């Protein structure tokens, strides 16, 4: 009998935000349903309800017609549901096999772990995935991509009828993405129900059977993948035509002289990078995960140690010992991981915005709180951050708003930024806010600031930057001006032997 | 549900806190808890001779009006010479303050509670948990409360400051256990205690006088000394030095066989005694015979356990200052190498102390006039050396009965 998963009019509210408002849809066995929508549209809340991590205010989930209620995540596991979150749920000090079998370690006799069975079961799964990992390896010592695969193997081992993926491909290299898609295809044949949350249009079109679009916690529509296209989806998601998102970006185009030049920079993960950034230029950095772009920028910014190489800013040779030096010289970095490296969740928006310019908001020996408030108010207004006041804790805001706080921090009135480095500024942000971010990037350039724009989404990098540098494995593989840049050309530079899988992807 | 449990828990704790604060038998809010029983008329009964040790012969019975030397009749509770009838005056409130919870102090508290009816006073107990700063503040608190007298263990490390504070309150006080001396070494506060050096020396002296009964006629040059110490406390340090000095006086040639073990690295308990003794005894097998001197009983008990594990019972003799642990061991049938200890009975401390304090509170005696007959040359006031006894397995029961009889309580 075919499996049926039904979400019946689920609602969930957080203080000040209606995360889910009467959402109802169903997914039959053997089909992949993609979940798309702006961040804050309620996708991750839906998954948390499915996994039993949180309970809905109204409505519920039923499987094969039977209503389910999950007091704890354990109940959802027993109902044969497993969810793979963005943040990995692994224990780094333990072995791969123990992480995969986790709560169901095979037991023999009075509770003793049957290690031979454990090793055999793990090797079986490793063979299915075809990964060069040994069962006894310690997870902490694996590459980021392999760690994500361990997470996915954990769900596969549970052999749950319903499997949900939340942005699984972000840390994966293309070899792993290919393995993942082959696995999902196999799961479909075995009649499993797959929920797939992603912002990558290409992936969604390639793997899903239907696409469910959420907006502001409400179900907009659900489309059959075969009978829809990218533009229609985006319109559903943001109700605005994406076509001209990049077209009506008013750019300054008065690119001045060389602001920052880097000569054969060597650092951890960076093998001899050289480039120049001009005043008022938006310099895009394209490449796949692990190409070394973040490592390059962190080395320049002084966050990680430089092994060798020369950096000159406005003609002067500089070496930033620490982020403190970089900021003093007008270089700013928006980190890739908002929660871990960007925000102090426990402090107010005002505190987070004034962090790098504390010495400039002082009145005598003390901090001038009023000046801070005006700074924060200005940022809230310019970036349209949804918050009742600037005293609200940063932790209580949505992902999109949190990203805006960090942008506001580095471009506040008191920051005389010369070089602004944005590392995946639109990661995990809804399409609507992305458009605003692109306009902001151009505005910064218009002010004469040199902007470095790192992104893993090709269309974004190509259309926003004036010139694009492509990196792979810590080296620059090519420079392309926006006019001649096409996705195919940039891709060719960005990848090497994964030609075949990328073909299918585009 | 969790909230309800938390509320119940809060109420339970508030109630038990309230109960804690009511545990004082005699809340010092002035109401005497029980009317004082009339004391026997101060008949001039001749005090029984105090047992072995520094007893003085009694002098002529004093007349009521002259301020006479209280020391002459120090051991008898029935009679004290301040001439004021306890029942005729209102109840004195005294504070008995000491530094850390110890068995001896607790016994003194029980003795004080027993004497309250006779001398018409109430006792409030305070333990400073080895925090001298807290002790000083407590003295100020109680002087604000208007208590009548202090019976206090003055910590030797800050005796000058504590004396200064006590004098500042103008309230009569008596020191217990530790002497209070100025730079010249002259005693400046009337104190009931035992000289550290004497106590340490006497225990070794007894071992030296009696070792033959245990080991027979052995070559004296073979005897070594394991001498425990807890240097931060001046009193324990004096006992350590006293034992060492007397040992070298008796056996000058054995200088190389003297080992001192300072327990400063561990807690004041049996485990530290065991760790130190076992290591030193095992590390020096060449020393054939051992005297072990314990400035604190718990260290000697640790040594006793170490001797048992190393089965060296036949060549080690252990002694200690203090008689709270060993008698209990003997009651339990112990007959090991811990053969003797210096007995400090609580009554022998309490009675002279409280009598001196009451005399001062009655205004009939001043620190200088107390125990003049017992004053050591060069001391401004008297350090009242408590008479003690060296207990062994056979005489300890009889000794304790005798003390009760002497104090008129039996």
């Amino acid at each position, binding site marked *: 009998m075919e499996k049926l998963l039904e979400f019946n009019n689920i609602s969930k509210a957080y203080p000040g935000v209606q995360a889910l408002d009467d959402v109802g849809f169903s997914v039959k066995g053997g089909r992949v349903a993609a979940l798309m929508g702006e961040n804050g549209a309620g996708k991750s809340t839906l998954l948390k309800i499915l996994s039993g991590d949180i309970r809905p205010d109204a409505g519920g989930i039923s499987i094969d017609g039977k209503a389910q209620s999950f007091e704890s995540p354990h109940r959802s596991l027993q109902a044969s549901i497993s969810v793979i979150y963005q943040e990995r749920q692994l224990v780094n000090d333990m072995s791969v096999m123990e992480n995969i079998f986790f709560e169901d370690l095979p037991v023999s006799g009075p509770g003793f772990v049957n290690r031979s069975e454990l090793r055999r079961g793990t090797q079986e799964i490793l063979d299915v995935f075809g990964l060069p990992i040994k069962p006894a390896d310690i997870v902490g010592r694996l590459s980021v991509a392999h760690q994500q695969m361990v997470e996915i193997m954990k769900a596969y081992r549970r052999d749950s009828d319903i499997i949900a993926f939340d942005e699984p491909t972000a840390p994966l290299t293309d070899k792993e993405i290919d393995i993942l898609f082959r696995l999902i295809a196999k799961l479909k044949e075995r009649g499993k129900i797959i929920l797939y949350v992603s912002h990558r249009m290409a992936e969604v079109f390639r793997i899903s059977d239907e696409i469910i679009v959420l907006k502001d916690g409400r179900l907009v529509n659900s489309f059959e993948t075969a009978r829809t296209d990218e533009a229609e989806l985006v319109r559903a998601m943001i109700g605005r035509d994406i076509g001209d998102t990049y077209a009506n970006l008013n750019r300054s185009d008065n690119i001045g002289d060389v602001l920052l030049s880097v000569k054969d920079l060597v650092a951890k993960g960076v093998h001899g990078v050289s480039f120049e950034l001009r005043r008022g230029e938006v310099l895009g950095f394209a490449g796949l995960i692990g190409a070394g772009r973040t490592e390059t920028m962190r080395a320049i910014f002084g966050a990680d140690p430089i092994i060798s190489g020369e950096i000159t800013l406005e003609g002067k040779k500089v070496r930033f010992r620490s982020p403190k030096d970089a900021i003093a010289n007008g270089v700013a970095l928006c980190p890739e991981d908002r929660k871990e490296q960007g925000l102090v*969740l426990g402090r107010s928006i005002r505190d987070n915005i004034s962090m790098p310019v504390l010495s400039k908001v002082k009145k005598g020996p003390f901090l001038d709180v009023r000046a801070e408030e005006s700074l924060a108010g200005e940022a809230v207004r310019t970036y349209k951050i949804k918050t009742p006041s600037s005293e609200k804790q940063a932790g*209580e805001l949505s992902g999109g708003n949190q990203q805006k706080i960090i942008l506001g921090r580095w471009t506040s009135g008191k920051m005389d930024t010369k070089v602004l480095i944005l590392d995946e500024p639109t990661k995990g942000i809804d399409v609507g806010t992305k458009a605003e971010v692109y306009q902001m990037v151009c505005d910064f350039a218009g002010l004469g600031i040199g902007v470095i724009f790192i992104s893993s989404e090709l269309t974004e990098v190509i259309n926003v930057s004036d010139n694009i540098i492509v990196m792979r494995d810590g080296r620059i593989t090519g420079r392309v001006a926006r006019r001649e840049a096409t996705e195919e050309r940039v891709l060719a530079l960005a990848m090497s032997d994964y030609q075949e899988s990328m073909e299918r992807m585009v | 549900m969790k909230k309800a449990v938390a509320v119940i828990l809060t109420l339970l704790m508030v109630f038990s806190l309230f109960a804690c604060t009511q545990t004082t038998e005699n809340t010092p*809010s002035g109401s005497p808890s029980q009317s004082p029983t009339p004391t026997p008329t101060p008949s001039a009964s001749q005090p029984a001779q105090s047992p072995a040790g520094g007893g003085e012969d009694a002098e002529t019975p004093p007349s009521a009006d002259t301020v006479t030397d209280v020391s002459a009749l120090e051991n008898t509770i029935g009679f004290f010479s301040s001439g004021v009838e306890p029942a005729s005056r209102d109840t004195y409130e005294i504070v008995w303050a000491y530094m850390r919870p110890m068995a001896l102090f607790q016994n003194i508290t029980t003795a004080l509670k027993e004497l309250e009816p006779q001398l018409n006073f109430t006792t409030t107990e305070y333990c400073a948990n080895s925090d001298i700063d807290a002790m000083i503040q407590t003295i100020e608190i109680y002087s604000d409360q208007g208590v009548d007298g202090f019976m206090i263990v003055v910590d030797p490390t800050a005796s000058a400051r504590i004396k200064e504070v006590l004098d500042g309150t103008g309230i009569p006080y008596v020191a217990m256990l530790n002497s209070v001396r100025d730079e010249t070494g002259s005693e400046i506060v009337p104190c009931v205690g035992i000289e550290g050096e004497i106590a340490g020396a006497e225990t070794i002296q007894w071992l030296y006088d009696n070792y033959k009964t245990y080991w027979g006629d052995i070559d004296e040059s073979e005897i070594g000394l394991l001498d425990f110490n807890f240097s931060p406390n001046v009193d324990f340090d004096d006992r350590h030095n006293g034992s060492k000095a007397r040992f070298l006086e008796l056996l000058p040639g054995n200088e190389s066989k003297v080992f001192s073990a300072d327990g400063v690295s561990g807690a004041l308990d049996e485990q530290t005694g065991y760790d130190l003794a076992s290591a030193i005894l095992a590390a020096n097998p060449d020393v054939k015979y051992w005297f072990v001197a314990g400035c604190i009983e718990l260290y000697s008990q640790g040594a006793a356990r170490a001797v048992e594990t190393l089965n060296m019972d036949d060549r080690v003799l252990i002694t200690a200052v203090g008689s709270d642990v060993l008698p209990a061991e003997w009651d339990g049938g112990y007959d090991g190498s811990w053969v003797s200890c210096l007995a400090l009975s609580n009554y022998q401390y309490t009675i002279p102390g409280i009598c001196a304090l009451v005399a001062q509170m009655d205004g009939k005696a001043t620190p200088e006039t107390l125990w003049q007959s017992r004053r050591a040359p060069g001391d401004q006031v008297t350090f009242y050396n408590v008479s003690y006894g060296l207990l062994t397995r056979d005489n300890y029961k009889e000794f304790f009965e005798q003390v009760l009889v002497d104090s008129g309580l039996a």
Partner: protein
Amino acid sequence: MTKRINKFLRSKHFSLVVLLVMMIAFFWAFSKNHSYLGLNNIRNILNSTVIYTLLAVGGGLVIIAGEIDLSPGYVGTAAGAVMAALLNSTGLPWLVVVVMCLAIGVVFGLINAFLINELKLQSFIATLAIGSFIAGGFAYIVVDGKTLEIKNDAIALIGTGRIGGFVPYTIIISTAVIVIYGVILAKTKFGRCVYLCGGNREAARLTGISPRLMSYILFANSGMLGALAGLLYDARLKAGNLTGTNHYVFPAITAAVLGGLSLGGGNGDMLGCFLGLLIISGFNNGLVVLGVSPFWQNVASGLLLLLALTLDYLTKRGTKGGRAHGKAAGV
């Protein structure tokens, strides 16, 4: 203005003030002719907070920055012992000796910070080793186990002197310290950096604050205040004491946590700390004034701690205690 008032009503300080007032009322009612609130006794209470205040301020800053320091008590004893030794054996003026002793506190603090930042030791273990073993042992070695009399009049005046015969200098020093550090923490850039480092160390680093430098400064400061506490303790006793402030650290940390600092770091302030100190010292003082038997006093102070934690649980609607900070309800 009303915004500030109801912000205060909801805040942690309000529940502390309520607890304090209830306690004072209880002891006032039961103390002999209401002497608990007598002027003398209030001075006694403040007097007993002096040493705890210095350790709670030094240790509190370290806790807000996300670490913990168990060594200031032992460092204080070591500093006191050195002061006694120097005053007795050398002719140095007392001010020079005091500065040298504070420097010793700073050195111990820097060693702590070096172990934690460079050798990546856990702060509980590193400060336990530096404090109770090394600083404790150092104190004994310096004075060779003997307690030395302190006869210097200036030190004696600071320790025991009273302005206008009533207010002891030590209270003025400790109040000044907690007020100054309260202002620094709440109002200055340095204070804000302490909170930011405690909240998210990496985020602070990426915005130009150096958490490593902060850690060195805070541990050095905690060492210095620990040394100051030791000096005041010995000045009050006019003797170099060897057990001194060793066992003052745990009650000081307890008072700080009672006052709203969470061991996970990132929140709490000096006003809360001061209220926590007042509650604990006022409570102990009250027990002494009532003449509660000493052993029940220990039981009562343990119960007070548990009661305060339960009240904190009841007032904090549902959010868990220190361990789970950062579990923000992100959508």
